[in-house]
């Protein structure tokens, strides 16, 4: 059948897409590029007349006012390439979702062009290089050949006639790498051959894996060969099961168990029995159980224990469902879940982040809630990392940054969910292992839905087709990556289709209202195997895999069962409700697949074409995994702080290890405070993230009362966002924030955990949330827990979470861990991330119109510093910004601890805000008091006159502390405000000034004065521009 090839190009050479590509490529160091033209390719298979080809292009493929096109029938001799251009054409690999291709076929038929049979898309790049030889030289130096630019690239480039001789091989490779990702793309120099999706049918092949009688070595070899990530004890348990049952396992059974028992699904490290090999002076903290210094499960001992001790009546569901659930206003409940999608984002940043967002939205759908807000916290390597410092096979951090941000944007915006809170951090340790935390908040009327599946209910899958995408994602995410991971695990990468997921929302919410299902869960890691397996874990079920709609042929049954194809939910549907659900699906173009039935057998039975390919009993599948026994060495730098719980009530812990009394600090050498402040404001972790925040839609759904960017010019950083969801009655609202600090994590994981819980709580209190109604989520991203010191740091962080939750009376309602964030480079070195704990916080406020923002409001108002102010330089950003200028002694200072008086400070602040006494509040975080004050000035475009209390000015300005905020109060309200802080730490620091300048004095003498315009200029430094000026 004929194939027609269409090229669509913009009539203007400076179309925004091409201009953006050029800017990105040049920022990656490809300064030899003078111009990029990017054009769209469409391949149409079918029987079309020349007139029909013209009509197809005019009415479907181009925007007639801005674009033009060429077309011809294939095969035909390629058109002459423009002289001097390097031409690269790129298409998706077979099996990678191409939603546009499907739409072309559908819409062409709609237009009466019924001769169109199949379609495929691609991109055509024309690269033009600057003529200068000197540029060539500098590029060759700055862009070395990388391991993943394979020999075949080099060979074909050498043969290509379209490449001018002056363009070196390495530049060509780098240019190609800047637009393709071999994990999802195939490409060609010159014209690419189209390939089309084909009709779908499974291969039906099932293998039997012999386990009985295998030696331990052979067991481990089998685990490695199938990339199962099961250890010896687990493989031995499988062997014992086979011997008991008198049979071996099919590949479907083996893969199912590997997924169900993966770190990702079962969190074996957090459930492990941990033996602590060293102890701190005077023994272990009291919360560590038993005389033998063991912790029987980090999760139960620290995380769940904290929630149970706090026993907040407004927590409606913690840890059991897909997302944690709390009460909003007595009529509505809200859910919150945060997930990571780190490994997929490392190898395909757009798809990894895209499906990370899609996955966490499905978690909220999995509790039948309407998604109303997204959060995202991203950690990347330094954006100016030289190429030759990257481990082989690792994408440049700048590529990862732009891909991840685009992936988050694409999914959230298209779903119509506002992205309202987040953070972006940089550390060299994230270069090979970026962290992508995606969160979603949901809402529903307060009525617990779903009785759980009942025998006789149908097993129904809603959503997209099943392909080879994301195979073994759960085990993949549980392994250390190496240079080959990208290639081998290519199948683990998924590309999302948010519009399909939007269809799921449109179906599930009314289906819930009408009671059309008894249980629901999402298809995440492990695909159907884990979704159906979990749902049927208390009943049993029988599934027929031949009923699953496939995207393309050749999938073996285990691949169908394990595929992590996106945008699918599994529902338990009573047979009598099935027609109504089908009708709803038809209305919203959602595919419904009835693949089986829940039973009372206690067994999971899977057939393919009638033949049994899996038959496992629930008891073994869900409880047969042996508890891991691990060893931990506590970090030497650990502070050994602890809360004494023996005599405490939750809300009044008697003491925390006292803060270091304002100590005899060695005076700092002369460091210019004004320059230091400007450098801090321009530091990548502190600098404005407005360019990213604005590509996320934070207004859709109309509920964003306090926005991520705030202040007089809408460009200052909010501490938290406040939502008043549509559908909620009255003025009740939700506040969202987070706390994260890898700098502290590197030094003292216990204090880090305390500090980030404090930060997450404080950010909420700063906008007016009620500190008595705050719930927390924990996301641990760590290295390999089999290394005792890595696990020791994790133990300390979990203990810190527990103690901080009790201190603030803020329960954990959900959490997740992502371990093995390590990268084995070809150099044989392990590259691990800094111990990173994200605490996401969700708070409730009775009246959103009482919320406040951080920007200064009015000249003449008073500025207070509240909280126990004990600035220290341990882990501070002062060190990052003023490195080399600080005496080594300050480097070894402990990171900040949390004062026992902090909850009282927050309660007092909340009462003041609720009474309308406060005009602005802002927390002290990275960069300390000076950065907080500068940000408030930027927000209000107003000045501040500050007089520092006694002490070393540099420490007071840039040291970091927990538990403190700057608060703006009108003079008339000062007395009432101060009265609320009787016996609590509060000091008057200065006044808001009409003249827009930050003026800081100590003891009456001027330290520095910086105009707000200078603060703004430093803070608005673009990450991108920083790179270019550094060149």
């Amino acid at each position, binding site marked *: 059948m004929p194939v027609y090839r269409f090229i669509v190009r913009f009539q203007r050479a400076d*179309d*925004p*897409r091409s*201009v*953006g590509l050029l800017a990105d490529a040049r920022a990656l160091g490809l300064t030899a590029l003078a111009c990029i033209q990017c054009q769209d390719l469409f391949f149409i298979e079918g029987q079309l007349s020349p007139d029909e080809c013209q009509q197809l292009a005019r*009415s*479907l*493929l181009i*925007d*007639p*006012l*801005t674009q033009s096109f060429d077309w011809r029938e294939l095969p035909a001799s390629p058109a002459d390439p423009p002289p001097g251009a390097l031409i690269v054409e790129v298409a998706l690999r077979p099996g990678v979702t191409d*939603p*546009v291709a499907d*739409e*072309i076929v559908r*819409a062409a038929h*709609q*237009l009466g062009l019924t001769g169109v049979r199949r379609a495929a898309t691609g991109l055509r790049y024309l690269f033009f290089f600057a003529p200068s030889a000197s540029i060539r030289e500098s590029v060759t130096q700055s862009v070395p050949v990388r391991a993943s630019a394979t020999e075949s690239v080099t060979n074909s480039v050498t043969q290509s006639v379209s490449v001018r001789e002056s363009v070196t091989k390495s530049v060509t490779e780098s240019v190609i790498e800047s637009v393709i990702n071999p994990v999802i793309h195939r490409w060609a120099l010159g014209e690419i051959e189209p390939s089309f999706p084909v009709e779908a049918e499974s291969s039906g092949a099932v293998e039997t894996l012999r386990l009985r009688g295998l030696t331990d070595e052979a067991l481990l070899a089998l685990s490695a060969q199938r990339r199962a990530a099961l250890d010896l004890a687990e493989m031995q348990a499988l062997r014992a099961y086979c011997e008991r049952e008198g049979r071996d396992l099919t590949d479907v059974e083996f893969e199912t168990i590997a997924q169900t028992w993966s770190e990702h699904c079962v969190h074996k490290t957090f459930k492990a029995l941990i033996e602590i090999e060293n102890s701190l002076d005077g023994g272990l903290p009291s919360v560590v159980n038993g005389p033998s210094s063991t912790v029987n499960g980090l999760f139960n001992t620290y995380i769940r224990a904290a929630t149970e001790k706090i026993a907040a009546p407004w927590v409606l569901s913690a840890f059991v469902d897909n997302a944690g659930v709390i009460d909003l206003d007595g009529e509505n409940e809200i859910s919150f879940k945060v997930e990571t999608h780190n490994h997929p984002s490392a190898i395909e940043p757009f798809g990894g982040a895209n499906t990370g967002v899609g996955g966490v939205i499905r978690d909220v759908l999995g509790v039948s809630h309407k998604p109303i807000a997204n959060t995202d916290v991203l950690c990347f390597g330094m954006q100016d990392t030289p190429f030759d410092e990257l481990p082989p096979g690792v994408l440049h951090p700048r590529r990862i940054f732009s891909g991840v941000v685009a992936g988050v*944007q694409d999914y959230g*915006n*298209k*779903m*119509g969910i506002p992205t309202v809170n987040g953070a972006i951090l940089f550390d060299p340790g994230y270069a090979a292992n970026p962290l992508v935390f995606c969160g979603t908040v949901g809402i529903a009327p307060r009525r617990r839905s779903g009785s759980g599946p009942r025998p006789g209910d149908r097993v129904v899958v809603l959503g997209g087709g099943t392909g080879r995408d994301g195979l073994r994602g759960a085990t993949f995410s549980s392994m250390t990556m190496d240079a080959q991971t990208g290639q081998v695990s290519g199948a683990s990468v998924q590309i999302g*289709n*948010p*519009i399909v997921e*939007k*269809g799921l929302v*449109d179906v599930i919410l009314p289906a819930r209202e009408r009671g059309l299902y008894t249980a629901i869960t999402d298809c995440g890691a492990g695909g159907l195997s884990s979704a159906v397996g979990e749902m049927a874990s208390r009943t049993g079920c029988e599934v027929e895999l031949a009923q699953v709609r496939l995207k393309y042929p050749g999938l073996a049954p285990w691949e169908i069962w394990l595929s992590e194809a996106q945008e699918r939910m599994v529902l338990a549907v009573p047979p009598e409700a099935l027609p109504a659900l089908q009708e709803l699906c*038809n*209305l*919203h*173009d959602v595919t419904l697949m009835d693949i089986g039935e829940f039973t009372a057998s206690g067994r999971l039975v899977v057939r393919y074409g009638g033949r049994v390919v899996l038959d496992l009993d629930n008891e073994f599948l869900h409880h047969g995994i042996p508890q891991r026994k691990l060893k931990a060495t506590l970090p030497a730098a650990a502070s050994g702080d602890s809360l004494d719980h023996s005599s405490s009530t939750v809300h009044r812990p008697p003491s925390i290890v006292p803060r270091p009394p304002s100590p005899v600090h060695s005076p700092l050498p002369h460091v210019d405070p004004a320059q230091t402040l400007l450098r801090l404001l321009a530091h990548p972790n502190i600098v404005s993230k407005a360019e990213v925040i*604005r*590509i*996320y*839609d*934070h*207004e*859709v*759904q*109309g509920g*964003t*009362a*306090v*926005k991520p960017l*705030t202040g*007089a010019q*809408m460009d200052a950083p909010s501490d938290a966002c406040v939502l*008043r969801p*549509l559908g909620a009655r009255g003025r009740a609202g939700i506040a969202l924030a987070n706390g994260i600090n890898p700098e502290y994590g590197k030094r003292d994981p216990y204090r880090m955990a305390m500090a980030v819980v404090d930060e997450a709580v404080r950010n909420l209190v700063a906008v007016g949330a009620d500190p008595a109604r705050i719930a927390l989520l924990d996301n641990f991203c760590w290295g390999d827990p089999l290394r005792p010191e890595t696990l020791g740091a994790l133990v300390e962080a979990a203990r810190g979470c527990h103690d901080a939750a009790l201190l603030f009376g803020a329960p954990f309602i959900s959490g997740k861990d992502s371990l093995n964030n390590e990268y084995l480079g070809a150099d044989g070195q392990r590259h691990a991330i800094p111990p990173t704990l994200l605490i996401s916080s969700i708070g409730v406020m009775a009246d*959103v*119109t009482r*919320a*406040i*923002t951080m*920007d200064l*409001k009015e000249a003449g108002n008073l500025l207070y510093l509240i909280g126990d102010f004990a600035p220290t330089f341990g882990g501070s950003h002062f060190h990052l910004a003023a490195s080399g200028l600080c005496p080594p002694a300050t480097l070894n200072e402990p990171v900040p601890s949390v004062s026992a008086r902090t909850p009282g400070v927050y309660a007092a602040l909340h009462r003041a805000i609720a009474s309308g006494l406060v005009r602005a509040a802002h927390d002290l975080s990275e960069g300390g008091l000076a950065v907080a004050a500068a940000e408030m000035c930027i927000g209000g475009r107003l000045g501040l006159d500050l007089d520092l209390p006694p002490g070393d000015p540099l420490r007071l300005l840039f040291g970091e502390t927990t538990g403190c905020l700057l608060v703006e109060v009108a003079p008339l309200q000062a007395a009432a405000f101060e009265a609320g802080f009787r016996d609590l730490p509060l000091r008057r620091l200065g006044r808001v000034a009409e003249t827009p300048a930050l003026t800081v004095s100590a003891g009456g003498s001027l330290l520095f004065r910086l105009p707000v315009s200078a603060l703004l200029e430093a803070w608005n430094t673009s990450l991108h521009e920083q790179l270019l000026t550094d060149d």
Partner: protein
Amino acid sequence: MTTKPKALLLLAHGTNRDRDAAEALTLAGADPEVIPLNLLRQARRRFDEYQMLVLPGGFSYADALGAGKLLAIDLQTYFADQIRAFVASGKPVIGICNGFQALVKAGILPGDGVEATLTFNARGRFECRWVTLRPVSSTCVWTRGLDDLIACPVAHGEGNFQAAAPDRLTGQIALTYVLPDGSPAGGAYPANPNGSVLDIAGLCNPAGNVLGLMPHPENHIHPWQHPLWTRRAGGRSGLPLFENGVRYAVQL
């Protein structure tokens, strides 16, 4: 008491600001109903059962092949006669963001065969930010008589309005991007967020009953949605625009 005019809010595959628009219409006194496109295709609902038609924002068909393009093909194939009759009857129609894109790509706006498009923002990326609009048309039933400026967000990547002969459209310009003080944006970013010719933010058909606009007045209908409300600033609500449309529908 007059009965509330019934408003049809068309829910295409990927429409996502339907509830936002429904809230604005409810507050403005209409009776909005969100209708999935397939219900209309199956003829279980008809356009002429309604007094107002709203094409809300979103990403119909994921913006595949250009924002609004495939929804425009739906309008031109499935519903061509019904839409033509609805527009010709003079009933108020509004297309917001993706709805505007669909109306333009279906040729309903600007109308009279003038070639126009909404293409990629001049800065090449999606952007969400608050803008200030000046209602300028007395022909348009949605904007006539509105004196106050409107503050509301934009959230789009393809909102750059261009036309083959922009001079022919001056009578149809309904809303323009202006600086917060009300002076013309003059094409300058960020007041004109996308590079639209003549600072066009919204455009009506020659008869004035069909309005298309990129910004989202439906997201500024409560005082606490304004970005400066904690600074005790406010006003410039988007609600009067919807009240205007509803008032017009009521008196038809």
